[in-house]
């Protein structure tokens, strides 16, 4: 029973990643749109989009980390 609850908690943690997925997709959409409007600035937009996506990804990574902690430390 306890193990099942831990597995459920880890699964719930990873759910936080879905919002990050949607929003990172939004970053990509905006980057593509602005490169379409202004192809000259493609280099700058590309690096900014990657940095923005990477920073917003931190949230999902924390979710994953908490899930790992639950599985490997609580569950061991």
């Amino acid at each position, binding site marked *: 029973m306890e193990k099942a609850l831990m597995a459920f908690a880890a699964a719930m943690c990873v759910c936080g990643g879905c919002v990050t997925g949607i929003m990172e997709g939004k970053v990509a959409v905006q980057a593509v749109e602005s490169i379409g409007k202004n192809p000259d600035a493609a280099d700058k937009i590309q690096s900014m989009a990657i940095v923005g996506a*990477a920073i917003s990804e931190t949230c999902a*990574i*924390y979710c994953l*980390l908490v899930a790992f902690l639950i599985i490997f430390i609580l569950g061991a």
Partner: protein
Amino acid sequence: MKLQTAVFTVIIVTVAMAALLFYINKKLKDFDPLSEPKGIVLLVIMYAQMIDKMVKEKTNDEVATYLTPYIMSVAAFIFLSNILGLFALETPTSNLSVTLVLAAVTCILIEFYSAKARGAKGYIKSWFEPMAPFVILNIMSKLSTLLSLSLRLFGNILSGGILMSVIYQMLGSISRMIPVIGAKFNIFGVLIAPVLHFYFDLFSGVMQAFIFITLTTSFIGKELPNK
């Protein structure tokens, strides 16, 4: 005391990198500057130009002279560590200690360039901006840079490695259903896993190395006066 596997894999990466650098150095010495570059020489020149352009864009020329070699070597180190999973070894970057060291070097560099740009008095003052009580928030923001940089690399690579091992187990249990050869040979693993290795090891490895160096140069560039 039991040593972690990352100790050995880091040594392997370092030796591999040193051997690669010796080889490239020999190739570059033999290279005639007037002839057309090709092969590994072309690759190295393109790599150096790319990093040099990126660092110069985000910082100023004076800083870029010292920063570019470091960025180039750290990118090569992270990339080589990330693709170690292809050679059936554990990736060193899936150990938090390794990524924490890499992020700590970045943080020390950020503080160093911040102190150099502001001077001793301005640097101490920058910890108490905009008011004295904000020193707690400033310390927390510096710590969060360290944490997020190290955990991003660690989490991405570790999750890739765990997913790959889970997929291998699953494919192994599927191939056990095949009557004669399945019991000894993971036939589905050979067929399906290479595509996933391409994504989780190669693509993700290049991407994370690139993100790490982009963030490092951006954070350092932010501390410089006219940027």
